[in-house]
């Protein structure tokens, strides 16, 4: 938490998604494409099939232009963004897994060199030598997945690493193998989705055959993905599953994402089976686009689910999404969050009035922007909100306002209960300051509740994955810091909620 905070209007998590999602799509295509192209060329050589050869060759151009350029750059981009928005967490990951990444780099070098040679040597070297290069490319690419999968899955399910701190205990964690199967299926789907486009450019007499050939790959990829997904879901701890499964999932948006992902996978499977396999003649560029969209939607949905299911952690049960480590809660509570965040402390020392803002930046800005993604201002009650509930004019509008603005934080409280404790609309209009005080009280009470979670985390057995489901906000990090810091944060948030105050800039905390 000692790093300066980068104020980003769209929020760090959204930026990471913007860089990471295209990267994972392209990188999985690069791996699956390696297999499909190598197999396709092998079949082409064995059968003397010129069309299959043409498909492999055309696809290899896409492979090099998309994978070795965009894939490589966006891969570096993930590190760049992670270093900017979550430096503490990426540092912990790198210190734990530097040799894993170094090993992945070796495979990456083999993969890139082979890809460049493969593309450049069509028509210039023997068939056997070219096939060899293609297969070396695939093996290098797949082995890089074998490595990075261990690090990615570690973040969600660190397994015995929490107890031993040992590299391999974290690497071969509970979701390692299911995720590898799932990602293998996704690789096939991504590659097939891309390769349908060059297949459509084949001469009409051979097009159906090639489309059907790719259909088998897509169906296989979808089935392997589904098997891997269900296995992945099954090995997740109940507390994590509870976030997005069951009759009352803790995070409704994640549950919706899960449905979306599985329906997208179903759509990909149906399109592949019905059109690519059964009626390849019906295949059109639009079909390929739908197939690609469905495959991307499933993959994107799964990635969103995986990231969301990790909440409130970056490394489950070890590091929260704001960089705070579970082990440091007691110390930070005693010394204060600004004592460990020198940049914030410096600003606060220069102007004590900004202490609350600096505490917000250190504790909350990793997930919340002021007015953009996960806007903190929108999450806070305003005078207008209270007025809308209290006035209920026209009748029914108050209940809607209550459901939209209050119900999420006041589970178990009905609209009528709320109206019972609120002053009347005229009283609110006459003395808005009273509502500000009320808001301030609610904000402080919420922060006190979040601070209480810190005690629960600090007392938890950190050698096992912590079950957050019983906590009041199972997907939020606790508030840590001293009493004066809590008060300063509450005052800062209160000032944000007051619509009559001049709005601060879009850039978080400024």
């Amino acid at each position, binding site marked *: 938490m*000692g790093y300066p905070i980068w104020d980003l209007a769209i929020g760090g998590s959204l930026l990471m998604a913007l860089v990471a999602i295209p990267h994972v799509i392209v990188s999985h295509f690069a791996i699956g494409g390696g297999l499909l192209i190598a197999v396709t060329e092998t079949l082409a050589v064995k059968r003397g099939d010129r069309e299959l050869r043409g498909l492999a060759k055309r696809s290899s151009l896409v492979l090099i232009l998309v994978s*070795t350029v965009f894939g490589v750059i966006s891969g570096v981009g993930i590190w*760049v963004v992670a270093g*900017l928005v979550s430096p503490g967490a990426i540092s912990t990951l*790198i210190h734990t897994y*530097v040799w894993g990444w170094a090993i992945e780099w070796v495979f990456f070098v083999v993969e890139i060199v082979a890809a460049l040679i493969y593309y450049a040597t069509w028509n210039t070297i023997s068939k056997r030598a070219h096939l060899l290069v293609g297969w070396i490319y695939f093996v*290098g690419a797949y082995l890089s997945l074998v490595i990075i999968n261990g690090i990615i899955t570690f973040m969600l399910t660190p397994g015995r690493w929490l107890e031993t701190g040992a590299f391999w205990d974290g690497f071969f964690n509970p979701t390692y193998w299911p995720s590898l199967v799932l990602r293998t299926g996704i690789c096939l789907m991504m590659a097939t989705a891309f390769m349908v486009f060059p297949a459509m450019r084949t001469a009409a007499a051979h097009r159906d055959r090639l489309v059907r050939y790719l259909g088998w790959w897509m169906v296989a990829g979808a089935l392997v993905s589904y098997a891997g997904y269900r296995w992945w879901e099954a090995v997740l701890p109940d507390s994590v599953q509870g976030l997005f499964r069951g009759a009352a999932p803790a995070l409704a948006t994640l549950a919706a994402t899960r449905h979306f992902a599985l329906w997208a996978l179903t759509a990909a499977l149906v399109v592949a089976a019905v059109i690519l396999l059964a009626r390849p003649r019906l295949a059109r560029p639009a079909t390929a686009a739908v197939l690609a969209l469905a495959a991307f939607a499933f993959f994107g949905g799964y990635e969103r689910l995986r990231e969301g299911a990790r909440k409130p952690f970056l490394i489950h049960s070890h590091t929260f999404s704001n960089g705070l480590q579970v082990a440091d809660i007691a110390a930070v509570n005693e010394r204060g969050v600004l004592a460990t965040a020198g940049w914030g402390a410096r600003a606060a020392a220069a102007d004590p009035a900004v202490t609350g803002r600096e505490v917000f930046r250190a504790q909350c800005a990793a997930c919340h922007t002021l007015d953009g993604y996960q806007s903190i201002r929108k999450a806070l009650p305003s005078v207008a909100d209270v007025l809308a509930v209290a006035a209920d004019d026209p009748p029914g509008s108050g209940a809607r306002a209550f459901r939209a603005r209050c119900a999420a934080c006041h589970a178990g409280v009905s609209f009528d209960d709320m109206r019972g404790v609120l002053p009347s609309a005229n009283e609110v209009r006459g003395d808005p300051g009273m509502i500000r005080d009320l808001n301030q009280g609610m904000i402080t009470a919420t922060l006190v509740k979040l601070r209480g979670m810190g005690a629960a985390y600090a007392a938890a057995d950190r050698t096992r994955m912590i079950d957050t489901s019983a906590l009041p906000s199972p997907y939020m990090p606790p508030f840590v810091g001293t009493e004066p810091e809590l008060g300063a944060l509450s005052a800062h948030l209160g000032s944000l909620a007051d619509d009559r105050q001049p709005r601060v800039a879009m850039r978080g905390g400024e």
Partner: protein
Amino acid sequence: MHADLIPALDAAGLPGPPWLFHVLLVVTFFLHLLFMNLTLGGTLLAAIAHFRAGGRSDDPRGALAGRLMAINGYGISLTITTGVAPLLFIQVLYQQYFYTATILIAGVWLAFLLLLTLGYYSAYLYKFRGAPARGRGGGLWLAASAVMFLLMAMVNVAVHLLHAQPERWADFASGAACVLLDPTYLPRLLHFVLAGIGAAALLATWWAVRRARAGVEVELNAKIAGFAWRWVLWTTVVQVVDGVLLLLLLPRPVLSAFMRGGAATMVPLTLAILLGVGLLVMIARVASPLASPGIVSGTLAAMVLTIAVMSITRHQARALYLEPSTTLYQHVVAPQWFNFALWVVLLVLGLATVGSMVRRVLSSPATGADAA
């Protein structure tokens, strides 16, 4: 020194002794520099040659531009690939300085990705749609690519200077652009740019001489070698002056720490200076590179050696810049020797695979129906 602004060391500790990561950082950065010189210097030289040729590939300078960018299609990939390793190791050794520096100029650091993407695809556009493919034109793409890579060099130098001077972070926080006013900024940037152009020109000369002596397009290759060799000469002349200037502009404590460091710091520094001057002498002696292929090859080898030694000196300079801060703590070391050994084994196997693949490719030429 605002020690409170320097984030704490990572509690996870180093997964190996610090010296190991210092060595790996220097070695992998050296590898990265070899390809980076081609990407940055090669693209700049290609742009110069292209415009001097009036955008025509039938001019020897245009042909040189085509050659350089043909290599760069692959060279840029390898620059990024080899850049990943030092990026990894710097995060192990200097994470608290590196991350802070990048956050201080976050927007610019993020723009680095955009510049790289634009520079890379522009290079491909020139290769596939510009002079190499069509015989003329494409200068805009080439210029765009060169500008992008030059801007990336500027960003990298800024990050380097920022991360090495935590005592100035408090000033930078109020406007990180003032890193451009650091007296060493421009000489440092120029040092990289000149080295890049010189190295790319030298490689182009070496290749042209080799081809000419093999009897391939003798006249064309002789002209390319002559043009490129002049760039080797003049960039090296300016480089030696710039290098001395950079040395003199280093902060006094850093310069004296170099002197106090004894053989460990003075041997690489002296060697680097001697190699620089030696390169200049070797280059100046040759009027026609075609007539002195031995000296051209020797110069190429000496330049690679100079880059290796300069990589060490640059790393030592960083360590000396950071000394007031790094002496305040000691790394906790939790070595993972098995994993390191596994990495070494896989690295050897990986490089052997690449080597045997390249040999196999070179020994399997085929045409017509026999070809892939």
